[in-house]
């Protein structure tokens, strides 16, 4: 606030200003200010020093110097992210010349509520709201002229998102997205695209706009559509969907780490080992491995953690420090409440508006309050020490902190309580910063009164707080992996390498799953080699027990203590384990259209690969080979995009061209989705003369019998006519269907998506976890994906699965539901409603009673709110305490029931 040096705000894409002393953005970690050394007046000119003088916490120390540290580490993980496409590439679209041509990054900041315009989309030229916006896709991607021949993978999806956000803000906005192929191939992305286009009425135009023209302060675009017609339009704003480039210093990183880069300066990896660089012990995750979006980056992040953990398994727990706490003073806790109230100034954050001293003195008038103080910064290290001392000195057994949000700071104060032998449940926070000082900054008196209300309510609740148990549960240190395909083997191997026992259950008679049917990986390498490597490593590993021809019948228990019944050779067995990894795979979709199954010239892509592998004699006389994409996927029987068929088709087309160069290969497609570096294959296929013909859903190709052969009729929009292709061979890209997941989903209580794949707990934050604790997910069971992604996901699931195993005990959150079995009538409503399988009906004597499985309970409170006899209460949020709080709000004698 005092820093006089104004600098350009680079976080906001230079659209705003900030000072040399700033926090980059609201969610930055750590959420503390830093000084931009390049801009600071003190550091550069030895003047100013204002911040150091005004900081009441004396937290600025200009005597600090940069230090060189030498760290001894066992593994290195590279996550430098992606770089920006050079501005010179954007110039041909008028960027830099016309102010209303912006990048998608800039537009993102404009649509952000905490951005420079507070979420109002305005033109940078005149700050007026635009009426018509155009998004231009593939700027700096799929463009060899700028050296980026690859597809940046994420831009189609983010353009749709930005367009949706803009439409949400201004429904009258006219948004057009110009694209080459819509590449929304991620899990659930195609459905999201459809929704966005339908709900918001976004225009999507398949055309490449060559340049942007400024006309009288507005922007003119011209484009040519598939049918050869030329169009033009005037827009108020043009957003360039800029691709992801390799990090600017990629070469430097590679030199330092001695790793290899690919031809686009991203990190070189292989489909079988997507997270390993060319050097042992150095791993890579995120966009540096190849352009990708958040779910995949987060998955890879977990995956590299597993790789490092495998490498360092021996060193586990050798350098850990265990924190010990004094025993709980239960006698003191049981005494009449002795409440201490600490009111925080938070520097000027609270004290600038709220009269902190008045609130403090008011607290002293409340019943049971024996100590009331104000602190400058309650959360600072020395303040916490002081609070701990005061608790001891005054024998406090309940604490109220009137400061900021419990979401961010309650754990800190709970630690303080534990350090002096108090149960951490005995604290209550009143958020007088967010709810008083900030939102009522213009009315200091009212804010002070409201602070008093909040403190009174908190104290009323504090009087009724009870210590909560901190139960922990022992963990059975082994994992169960269901499914012996590539993902299952990958996960099992990683868990085993990390030092834990693992049972790998496979229902067929051999390991391999879909990988065993694959002939080549996406980069054209021998898939059998990858499979052989995986199976031999699985068989050799002493930590892995493989059960073939085994099916899972039932799983009971909870995280740390699962007990699974499997059937094998007609007999049932029980396996005890701490965690479960679902790697049940998917299957090739088998169509009943396009003469599949009727004519032996019609194959699926996998069948073609297998034939090709055996030799090319079957290609004799096959002069015309036709491939049809999206058979089954994206509409027919499955609404999802199967993600890998486009690349698979292009890869197989190249193999066909190699085996029989004079054959003509046609690929009939809707959008070619060769995302990432697979775009190179697509370009190569075009160079080799593979014919790509686009079809639309309303004019799908027809397969007709023609004498003994077949012909494919397809409408070619370029010439505007149907063409008949006599096909010697018809290859269907049939996509990936989910496996039989329903039964297992019921057993585990793991939800499925509408497409029948397992649903992760959170697409971005918890991409390999299932909502049920202790259950993890990887491979095709999660959704269609390539081998490369499956392997990364398998590692990620293994990393997450090992966490409870390595801890040895699972700590149970104290805020869980508790059933009073005296009043429970055993109706079972709670059991049926619990989303976490954390409450069950058991027989107590002869009666049915509900019982919480505390290890699984998330404390959501659904059971408590539905219990007809109020037999369920939530720890820390008992009905009594909440009622007391409400009465206190009404000023009801400070919480004592009237």
């Amino acid at each position, binding site marked *: 606030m005092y820093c006089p040096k104004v600098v350009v705000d680079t976080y906001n894409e230079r659209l705003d200003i900030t000072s040399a002393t700033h926090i980059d953005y609201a969610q930055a970690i750590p959420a503390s200010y830093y000084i931009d050394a390049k801009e600071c007046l003190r550091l550069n000119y030895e003047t100013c020093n204002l911040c150091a003088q005004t900081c009441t916490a004396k937290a600025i120390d200009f005597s600090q110097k940069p230090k060189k540290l030498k760290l001894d580490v066992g593994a290195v993980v590279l996550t430098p992210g992606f770089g920006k496409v050079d501005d010179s590439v954007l110039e041909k679209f008028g960027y830099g010349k016309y102010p209303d041509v912006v990048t998608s990054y800039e537009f993102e900041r404009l649509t952000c509520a905490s951005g420079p315009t507070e979420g109002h989309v305005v033109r940078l030229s005149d700050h007026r709201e635009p009426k018509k916006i155009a998004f231009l896709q593939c700027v700096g991607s799929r463009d060899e002229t700028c050296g980026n021949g690859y597809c940046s993978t994420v831009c189609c999806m983010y353009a749709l998102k930005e367009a949706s956000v803009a439409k949400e803000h201004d429904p009258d906005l006219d948004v057009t997205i110009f694209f080459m192929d819509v590449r929304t191939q991620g899990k659930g992305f195609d459905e999201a695209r459809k929704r966005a286009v339908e709900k918001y009425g976004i225009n999507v135009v398949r055309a490449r706009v060559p*340049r942007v*023209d*400024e*006309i*009288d302060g*507005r922007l*003119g*675009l*011209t484009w040519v559509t598939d049918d050869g017609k*030329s*169009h*033009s*339009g*005037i827009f108020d704003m043009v957003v360039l969907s800029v691709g992801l480039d390799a990090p600017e210093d990629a070469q430097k990183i590679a030199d330092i780490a001695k790793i290899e880069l690919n031809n686009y300066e991203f990190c070189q990896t292989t489909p079988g080992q997507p997270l390993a660089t060319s050097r042992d012990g150095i791993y890579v995750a995120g966009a540096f491995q190849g352009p990708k979006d958040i779910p995949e980056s987060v998955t890879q992040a977990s995956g590299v953690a597993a790789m490092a953990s495998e490498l360092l398994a021996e060193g586990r727990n050798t350098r850990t420090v265990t924190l010990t706490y004094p025993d709980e003073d239960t006698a003191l806790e049981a005494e009449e409440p002795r409440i201490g109230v600490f009111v925080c100034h938070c520097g000027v954050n609270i004290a600038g508006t709220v009269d902190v001293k008045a609130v403090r003195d008011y607290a002293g008038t409340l019943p049971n309050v024996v100590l009331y103080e104000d602190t400058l910064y309650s959360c600072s290290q020395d303040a916490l020490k002081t609070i701990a001392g005061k608790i001891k000195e005054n024998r406090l057994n309940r604490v109220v902190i009137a400061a900021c949000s419990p979401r961010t700071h309650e754990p800190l104060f709970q630690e303080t309580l534990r350090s002096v032998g108090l149960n951490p449940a005995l604290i209550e926070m009143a958020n007088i910063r967010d709810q008083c000082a900030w939102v009522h900054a213009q009315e200091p008196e009212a804010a002070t009164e409201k602070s008093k209300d909040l403190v009174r309510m908190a104290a009323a609740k504090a009087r009724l707080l009870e210590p909560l148990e901190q139960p922990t549960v022992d963990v059975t240190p082994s994992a169960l992996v269901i499914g012996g395909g590539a993902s299952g083997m990958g996960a099992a191997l990683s868990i085993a390498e990390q030092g834990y026992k693992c049972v790998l259950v496979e229902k067929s008679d051999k390991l391999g799953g879909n990988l065993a049917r694959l002939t080549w990986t996406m980069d054209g390498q021998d898939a059998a080699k990858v499979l052989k490597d995986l199976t031999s490593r699985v068989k050799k590993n002493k930590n892995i027990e493989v059960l073939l021809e085994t099916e899972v019948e039932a799983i009971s228990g909870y995280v740390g203590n699962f007990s699974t019944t499997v059937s094998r050779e007609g007999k049932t067995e029980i396996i005890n384990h701490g965690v479960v990894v679902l790697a049940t795979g998917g299957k090739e979709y088998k169509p009943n259209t396009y003469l599949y199954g009727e004519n032996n010239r019609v194959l699926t892509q996998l069948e073609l690969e297998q034939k090709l592998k055996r030799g090319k004699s079957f290609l004799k006389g096959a002069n015309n080979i036709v491939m049809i994409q999206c058979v089954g996927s994206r509409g027919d029987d499955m609404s999802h995009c199967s993600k890998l068929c486009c690349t698979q088709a292009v890869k197989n087309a190249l193999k066909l061209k190699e085996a029989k160069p004079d054959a003509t290969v046609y690929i009939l497609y809707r959008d070619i989705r060769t995302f990432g570096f697979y775009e190179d294959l697509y370009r190569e296929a075009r160079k080799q003369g593979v014919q790509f013909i686009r079809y639309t859903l309303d004019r799908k190709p027809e397969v007709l019998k023609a004498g003994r052969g077949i012909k494919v009729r397809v409408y070619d929009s370029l010439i505007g006519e149907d063409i008949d292709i006599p096909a010697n061979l018809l290859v269907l890209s049939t996509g990936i269907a989910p496996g039989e997941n329903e039964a297992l989903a019921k057993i585990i209580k793991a939800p499925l998506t509408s497409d029948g794949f397992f649903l992760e707990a959170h697409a971005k934050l918890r991409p390999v976890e299932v909502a049920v604790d202790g259950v993890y997910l990887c491979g095709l069971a999660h959704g269609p994906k390539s081998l490369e992604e499956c392997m990364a996901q398998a590692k990620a699931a293994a990393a997450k699965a090992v966490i409870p195993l390595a801890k040895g005990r699972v700590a149970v959150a104290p805020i869980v539901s508790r059933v009073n079995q005296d009043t429970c009538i055993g109706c079972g409503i709670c059991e049926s409603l619990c989303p976490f399988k954390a409450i069950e009906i058991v027989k107590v004597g002869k009666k049915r009673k509900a019982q919480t499985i505390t290890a699984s309970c998330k404390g959501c409170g659904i059971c408590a709110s539905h219990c007809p006899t109020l037999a369920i209460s939530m720890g820390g949020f008992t009905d009594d305490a909440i009622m007391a709080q409400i009465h206190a709000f009404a000023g009801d004698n400070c919480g004592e029931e009237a």
Partner: protein
Amino acid sequence: MSVKIKGFCCNYTASVGVEALKEAGLVPEDFDMVRLPCTGRLEVQDLLEAFEKGADAVFVAGCMIDTCHNMSGSKRAAKRVGYAKKIIQELGMDQGLVEMFFVGRGETGPVVEAVREMVSRAEAADS
């Protein structure tokens, strides 16, 4: 009363179509433009015919002299506009009612400005 403007441009100027310009309200409804492969193709007669058919002002938008796609196309056009100027002057009209504009490749902005310029000239001549 609205004035009628007729324009001629070549294939390399004014990339944005007239319909889109009208829709955006950047040019008057009564504006009409003929796109030629090259303005060098233009004859004096074409310019005079435009007046005959009711145009109040006529202009030609060709490439910049030194970047003409066909080397000397816009130079020729400019010459012919010069002849047309002489003729309409002899007919008693303001010679500014026909004009040549040189426009950068693909640019539409200068063409819109040209239309506006011609509108004001036509209006001035009308009053």
